[in-house]
């Protein structure tokens, strides 16, 4: 039997222990009892034997006495003295009957039979048992068991005294079942008297045994003679057996068999055994019940704990574990409950972190998408028509650039609060990243959505005042309705995104998605199209800003910066079109164009013997396409035969933080190419040291806001110093951006910074200008 539960095991253990003890005890008791029973049976038999012998002596004495009284009877003596055979025979018969003898004989002093009531033909023949007379001569009486024609007699011989013996008289008492019964009554044992008959076969003359046992005993006698074992089986029952031989007048062997059923001796012990058996059974039953109760007490709370653990496994942390016991299990349950509490609160925290935007406390992109999915699911069942509003702040980049990130962050927080304030509780607001927000309205018609959009605009148009500075932010809002503008999360978001860019482009405040905003129309309508055209028409050009390797005092690297010669607007800086390109997903085109141009230039320099590392900026969106960009870069390196080490890729810290897991994987691939990876704008993205350690990057670029403030702000100096130390400790080289004074360069040199970049070193320059500049800076 396989035992799977603690309860069964406990019960099994207890019960098997008790059963084992009882079985051993029962075995011992039974063995002991049987020994005692045998001993006592043997003792009883021996006692019986002695009693039997005494009884026999007594009965013999009684017979002899009777015979003596008879022989002393005057009339009898007188009759004997007459010497008249007929008279003597008659007297013998008469007096024999009086003495209850079944055979009488008179024997002369010459030992010749004078009369015989049993066998008259023996008259005048010598007496068959002369030994009896010899003994009687000596003792005045004698007796023996004799077999006459296979009938057993107790023969007593006494003299007829007048007063000297004048004859011998023999009295025969037949030994039969009555004799045996008499002896049995007195001795309490089965008595059998047997002798070997004249024909050699054994004869049972007298017995108290019933018929079938008698036959069995006879069989034993025929087989073993007088050498019967101490225990013999009679019809299936064991009898303790003792054999004694009886004195006989002739040579035949006559024996007395005393018997007692062994079971008789065992009977009281059997009663004891059965009492013990029931007692054992009762104790086993009690043990089963008791151990079941104990086991239940142990296993019930364990089962409850197991159930609770299973619930936790399934994610249900809400049910408290209730075990009232005060013992170890109670303690275990209490700690288990604490653990449940801990897990619940930690999971809550994890969920909060996973679905919350750390800065504003609003939902993050993931949470927003989940909620949207849920709302769409509900809407699909019918009745409701949710809508999505995407917001992009119009002038946030400028605030960030001019007032710094801390101010920008505070502005974002403020905007979050304003958005929440304008919405119903059933609506939800999320910050998707950067200055992008989204609103989900689970219900409401177009009019309601329009109202919300206007309310949001109004709320955001109110100036934001932070540290005494007033800012005008304003936002462009793109709106998409379910199911009109998309039946799933991606489609809806995309529609809202397009609508938002339309609104931004047209500076209309908000725009509802329209299917007419297809790609062609858009390319005509939007900057997107212009960007594409710029790429196609080669309106983009590259500037290179030198980086000073401080240690060597030489320019060993340049950062490639893209510029747009807009046909109408003139030269446009990357800050004005790169974010747009990122939002519209066309950044990939620009990045590829930049990579191709920069790698080609690098190869040109390389072949010309000018060893300049060229750093290219990569956006967060570029990182999202895991395979494409690394493959494109690898191909560019190969086709221009540029060593990977001469190419650097710069990724902003905030881009890394937008999708840390995705960034990690793409960085691994880029790192595998052998290119140098730099973290751009370091210090603005709140990235943790631990995260940084995991990224396969080679270089940190300290954000220019820290470098430019070094001279006036000791705190910025400290940040720069600690960043350099941190970078070095992580085995990274450190680049300082925005170096605009000699003081800053000296300070950086003192702090052990590896590279310096900025207007103090050299401004971004077209290729030919740079080449000339380099020749001037490093005359050969």
């Amino acid at each position, binding site marked *: 039997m396989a035992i799977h539960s603690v309860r069964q095991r406990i019960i099994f253990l207890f019960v098997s222990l008790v059963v084992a003890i009882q079985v051993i005890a029962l075995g011992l008791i039974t063995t002991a009892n049987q020994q005692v029973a045998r001993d006592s049976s043997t003792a009883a038999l021996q006692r019986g034997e002695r009693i039997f012998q005494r009884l026999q002596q007594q009965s013999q004495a009684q017979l002899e006495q009777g015979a003596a009284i008879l022989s*002393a009877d*005057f009339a009898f003596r*007188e009759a*004997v*003295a007459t010497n008249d055979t007929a008279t003597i025979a008659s007297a013998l018969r008469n007096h024999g009957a009086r003495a209850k003898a079944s055979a009488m004989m008179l024997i002369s002093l010459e030992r010749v039979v004078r009369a015989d009531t049993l066998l008259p033909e023996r008259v005048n023949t010598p007496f068959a048992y002369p030994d009896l007379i010899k003994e009687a001569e000596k003792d005045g009486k004698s007796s023996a068991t004799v077999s006459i024609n296979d009938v057993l007699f107790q023969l007593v011989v006494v003299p007829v*005294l*007048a*007063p*000297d013996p*004048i004859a011998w008289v023999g009295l025969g008492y037949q030994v039969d079942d009555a004799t045996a019964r008499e002896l049995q009554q007195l001795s309490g044992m089965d008595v059998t008297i047997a002798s070997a008959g004249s024909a050699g076969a054994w004869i049972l003359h007298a017995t108290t045994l019933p018929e079938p046992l008698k036959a069995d005993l006879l069989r034993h006698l025929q087989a073993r003679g007088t050498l019967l074992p101490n225990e013999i089986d009679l019809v299936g029952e064991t009898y303790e057996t003792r054999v004694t031989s009886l004195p006989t007048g002739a040579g035949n062997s006559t024996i007395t068999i005393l018997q007692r059923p062994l079971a008789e001796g065992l009977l009281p012990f059997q009663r004891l055994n059965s009492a013990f058996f029931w007692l054992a059974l009762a104790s086993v039953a009690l043990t089963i019940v008791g151990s079941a109760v104990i086991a239940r007490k142990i296993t019930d709370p364990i089962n409850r704990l197991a159930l609770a653990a299973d619930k936790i496994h399934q994610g249900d942390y809400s049910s408290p574990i209730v075990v009232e016991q005060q013992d170890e299990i109670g303690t275990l349950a209490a700690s288990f409950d604490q653990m449940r509490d801990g897990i619940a609160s930690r999971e809550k925290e994890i969920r909060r972190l996973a679905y919350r935007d750390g800065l504003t406390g609003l939902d993050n992109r993931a949470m927003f998408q989940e909620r949207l999915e849920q709302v769409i699911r509900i809407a699909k069942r019918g009745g409701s028509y949710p809508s999505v509003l995407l917001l992009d702040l119009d002038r946030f980049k400028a605030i960030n650039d001019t007032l710094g990130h801390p101010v920008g962050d505070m502005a974002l927080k403020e905007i979050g609060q304003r958005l929440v304030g304008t919405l119903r509780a059933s609506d939800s607001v999320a910050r998707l990243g950067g200055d992008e927000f989204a609103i989900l309205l689970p219900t409401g018609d177009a009019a309601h959505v329009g109202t919300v959009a206007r309310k949001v605009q109004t709320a955001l148009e109110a100036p934001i005042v932070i540290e005494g500075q007033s800012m005008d932010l304003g936002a462009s809002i793109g709106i998409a309705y379910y199911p009109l503008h998309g039946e799933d999360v991606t489609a809806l978001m995309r529609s809202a995104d397009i609508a938002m860019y339309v609104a931004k482009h047209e500076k209309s405040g908000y725009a509802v998605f329209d299917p007419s905003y297809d790609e062609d129309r858009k390319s005509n309508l939007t900057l997107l199209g212009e960007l594409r055209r710029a790429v196609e028409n080669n309106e983009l050009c590259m500037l290179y800003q030198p980086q000073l390797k401080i240690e060597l005092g030489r320019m060993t690297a340049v950062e490639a910066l893209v510029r747009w010669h807009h046909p109408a607007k003139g030269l446009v800086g990357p800050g004005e079109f790169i974010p747009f390109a990122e939002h519209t997903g066309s950044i990939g085109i620009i990045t590829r164009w930049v990579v191709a141009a920069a790698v080609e230039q690098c190869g040109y320099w390389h072949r010309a013997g000018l060893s300049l590392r060229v750093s290219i900026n990569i956006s967060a969106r570029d990182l999202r396409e895991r395979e494409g960009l690394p493959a494109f870069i690898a191909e560019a390196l190969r086709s221009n035969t540029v060593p990977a080490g001469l190419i650097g890729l710069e990724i902003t810290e905030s881009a890394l933080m937008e999708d840390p897991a995705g960034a990690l994987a793409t960085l691994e691939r880029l790192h595998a190419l052998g290119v140098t990876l730099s973290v751009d704008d370091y210090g603005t993205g709140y990235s943790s040291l631990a995260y940084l350690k995991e990224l396969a990057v080679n270089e940190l670029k300290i954000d220019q806001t820290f470098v430019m403030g070094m001279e006036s702000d000791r705190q910025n100096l400290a940040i720069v110093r600690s960043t350099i130390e941190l970078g070095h400790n992580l085995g990274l080289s450190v680049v300082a951006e925005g170096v605009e004074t000699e003081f800053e360069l000296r300070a950086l040199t003192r702090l052990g910074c590896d590279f310096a970049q900025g207007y103090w070193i050299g401004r971004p320059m077209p290729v030919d200008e740079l080449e000339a500049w380099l020749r001037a800076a490093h005359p050969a």
Partner: protein
Amino acid sequence: MIQSNIPRSGVAIAAMLCGVLLAVSQAPPARGATIAAHVRSPAGAAIADAVIYALPAASLPLPKPTLKIPIEQIDREFVPYVSAVQTGTTMVFPNRDPIRHHVYSFSRAKTFEIKLYSGNAPSEILFDQPGVVTLGCNIHDWMIAYVQVVDTPYFAKTDAQGGAQLVNVPPGKYELKVWHPTQKGGGEPQAVVVGQAGVAASFVLDVAPRKRRYKPPLDKMHY
């Protein structure tokens, strides 16, 4: 042979002497010689209570017995244990005990029975056949006495020394016989010739010791 530690031993001895005197005095005085017989065992021990009697070889006129010979019962015993009488003697059985006795004999020489009595026996018994008469008491199994009835007046019983004197035996030829109640062998009859001077005879007799049967002691009432 006879108890001497009982109160009536004196009476017993007197009676015995009296019997001897009577037996002696019944013969004619100084008419014959004496046969001095002696009986001993093969080992040479004296044998008492042996009866010696002389049977005349020739038919002689013999004197008839005239005296009544007693066998008393004293202290639940027959006294004497052994008697010899001439055929034709009358015997009496006086009871000297305070209790009754029942004297009987199943002997062929004389079968008789005197039922319970006390004092002098109600009947006298004539012993008219020669032979041994064994007397018993039906009350007291141990009581036993022997009477040798002989066809001659010349008999005597050996004393403790084994000697016996047959007196006043007329001269002549006799067959001298010996008898003892427990004899086993020996004691062949002897032919003797009695002259004036008398003769001596000696017998060797194999005798079993007397086996007394158990006699219970008297109770407080002397019964």
